[in-house]
């Protein structure tokens, strides 16, 4: 009996208890807390407090959209002051570029490696200005009636600005079936907070077509599912842009670092989800150095393709009959256009990754290209900078003209309604396009240009994936093909190791094994000898 008890005790001590210890470890070690639900009131759920259709002033007969603006401002006074401070109106703002001081930059004067730049191509580009008729330098930024309230606030989905119209909607003279004269009474009586389509009409089509620029903002988001974007999905919370891009007094939060430089007025994930949304220490710690977007946007351009490469150097060829060439890739994206050059489009793109602290540099008019590829914009950040995080980025690469003497990026005149005014899209003539473009922007041009490679960095924020599709640890913490293989200014477990330590470690193990084998063989043979 005593012996049985002894055996039982032994079994408990050396088997049952140790296994229990390990079991409890696995049981509680692998446990993950539930993520707390986000409780926010969405702007998109708000109900209009007034019925605009009952206001007599909106029932008048409008002959001109400016009259609608006047009617709006007659009740919503002071709104014009707010709006005229905004970057949506001015297309530039005063901002500080770290290390360079205060500059005034924006869409108006910055260059890009898509259609190269807006100013001077107003008829086409300024269609996306929230005003009427910014067709040239004579546009009056102080006249409130130039404000286009409707493009943002129309909820009838019938208001459209004319292509090439410099921000004007169609008039009786130039109306088409696709772009009719708006029914101003209908539109003015159905105003409200902007929906996805109000913002998307410009922000989805930057660069001359759907999803060309951003890669994570495109028309598919108007009616999408959780597999594309968990926030905007109609089978999800069906959120609109201003639910995240919170807006007070026409100041819309959010920064596009293709045109912004400072870490201010940003729309963030944390504003709803908090700093520790996972309710899990190991994962929440990552938020110190890894942006939410990095894991939660594993792929972008999930539906339609986005431009990844745009080579202007081959633009200008014509068909034998001198008509313009249009070529498409297998997915029906442009691969060559006479007026724009060669493109590479793709969808389901894996982002590239960069340190980013919310500040950025930009290639300004007077900057000389010294390092190739020329960086159109530069995201600042590094591991040792406490405000930096790893961020997923769309890198848009291209080739475009620079002044061969000053190495400054060149302004091109692309758009015109008429031939022989120097516009590249009409005449396909490089020299006159550059001369006219530089002239409009009051810049000096040596007369000779050189084509240089460029890179532009677009941090990704949209097309947040379902949690099941979030990046797994191994996407980065791996020796081969780590997503952040290019970020080498820190030690990443699973990716990095010391060759000296690893090689000597394995050597120690190997020598131990050899020692054990030799020793045991010697024991075995000597034992036989003695027996």
């Amino acid at each position, binding site marked *: 009996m005593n012996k049985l008890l002894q055996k039982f005790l032994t079994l408990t*001590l050396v088997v049952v*208890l140790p296994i229990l210890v390990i079991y409890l470890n696995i049981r509680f070690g*692998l446990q993950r807390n539930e993520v707390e639900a986000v409780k926010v009131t969405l702007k998109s759920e708000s109900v209009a407090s007034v019925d605009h259709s009952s206001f007599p002033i909106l029932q008048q007969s409008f002959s001109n959209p400016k009259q609608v603006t006047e009617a709006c401002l007659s009740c919503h006074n002071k709104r014009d002051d707010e709006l005229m401070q905004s970057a949506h109106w001015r297309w530039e703002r005063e901002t500080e570029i770290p290390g360079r001081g205060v500059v005034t930059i924006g869409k108006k004067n910055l260059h890009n490696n898509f259609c190269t730049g807006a100013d001077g191509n107003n008829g086409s580009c300024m269609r996306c200005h929230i005003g009427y008729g910014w067709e040239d330098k004579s546009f009056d930024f102080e006249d409130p009636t130039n404000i286009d309230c409707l493009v943002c606030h129309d909820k009838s989905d019938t208001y459209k600005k004319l292509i090439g119209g410099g921000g004007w909607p169609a008039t009786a003279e130039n109306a088409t079936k696709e772009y009719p004269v708006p029914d101003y009474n209908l539109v003015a009586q159905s105003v409200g907070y902007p929906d996805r389509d109000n913002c998307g009409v410009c922000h989805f089509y930057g660069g001359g077509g759907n999803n060309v620029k951003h890669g994570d903002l495109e028309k598919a988001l108007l009616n999408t599912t959780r597999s594309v974007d968990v926030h905007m999905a109609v089978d999800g919370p069906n959120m609109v842009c201003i639910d995240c891009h919170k807006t007070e007094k026409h100041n819309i939060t959010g920064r596009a670092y293709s045109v912004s430089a400072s870490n201010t007025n940003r729309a963030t994930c944390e504003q709803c989800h908090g700093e520790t949304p996972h309710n899990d220490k190991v994962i929440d710690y990552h938020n110190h150095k890894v942006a939410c977007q990095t894991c939660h946007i594993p792929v972008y351009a999930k539906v339609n393709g986005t431009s990844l490469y745009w080579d202007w150097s081959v633009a200008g060829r014509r068909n034998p009959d001198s008509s313009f060439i249009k070529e498409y890739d297998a997915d029906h994206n442009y691969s060559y256009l006479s007026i724009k050059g060669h493109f590479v489009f793709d969808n389901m793109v894996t982002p590239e990754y960069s340190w980013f602290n919310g500040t950025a540099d930009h290639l300004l008019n007077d900057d000389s290209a010294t390092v190739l590829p020329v960086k159109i914009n530069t995201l600042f950040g590094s591991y040792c900078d406490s405000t930096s995080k790893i961020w997923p980025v769309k890198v848009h690469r291209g080739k475009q003209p620079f002044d061969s003497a000053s190495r400054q990026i060149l302004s091109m005149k692309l758009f015109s309604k008429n031939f022989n005014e120097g516009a590249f899209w009409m005449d396909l003539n490089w020299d006159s396009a550059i001369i006219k473009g530089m002239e409009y922007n009051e810049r000096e041009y040596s007369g000779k240009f050189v084509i240089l490679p460029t890179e532009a960095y677009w941090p990704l924020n949209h097309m947040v994936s379902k949690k099941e599709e979030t990046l797994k640890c191994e996407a980065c913490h*791996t020796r081969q093909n780590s997503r952040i293989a290019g970020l080498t200014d*820190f030690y990443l477990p699973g990716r990095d*190791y010391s060759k000296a330590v690893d090689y000597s470690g394995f050597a120690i193990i190997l020598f131990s094994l050899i020692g054990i084998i030799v020793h045991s063989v*010697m024991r075995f043979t000597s034992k036989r000898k003695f027996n």
Partner: protein
Amino acid sequence: MRKIKIFTPFERFWHWSQMLLVFVLTVTGFEIHGNYNLVGYECAVRLHNSAAWTFIGLGILSIVYMLSSKQYKNFIPTKEKLGEQIKYYTSGIFKNEPHPTKKSLYNKLNPLQRIIYVGLLIVVFPVQIFTGLIYMFYHYPQNPADVAGFKFAAITHTLGAFLMVAFVLVHVYMTTTGHKLTSGIKSMITGYEEEPLENKPSEKPENSI
């Protein structure tokens, strides 16, 4: 044959729990290090962390036990018979010579074991625990204090892991060098070691209680 008590119940529980923990820590640790893909990186990290905490808890428990029972004296290194012990493993064992040291409850480790184990207990374990805690809490340069770098801690932790693996290999092999092949392991299970009768019960050695 005569039975000598060598290991107390707590020591046996501690040893086998620690064995399993070291196994879990090693398997998950080298997965985290990027050497292979077995249970998945996230799972490996979670298991490694929880096993590490248990290891620390068990360590504290054992310190309390060692101090209160004075069993820690077993780990105090001694030069006495160290030469003989080395000579035994390098030549005597091949000539069927007897063990130069006798085990008992108060002298359970031979002079060579004392040096190795005390090295583990006061160098390797603390270094692993310290660098492991840095690993857990000091992720980034600004948090909580700017020490020279997480890289150094991570690489030191890796070196410690290699030494542990080498220790375990040799340790397991050494258990076979007792009176019989399995008598070492048996004593860690039952607490008793069997010895041939001709060996006199050991005198209380210098370092014993």
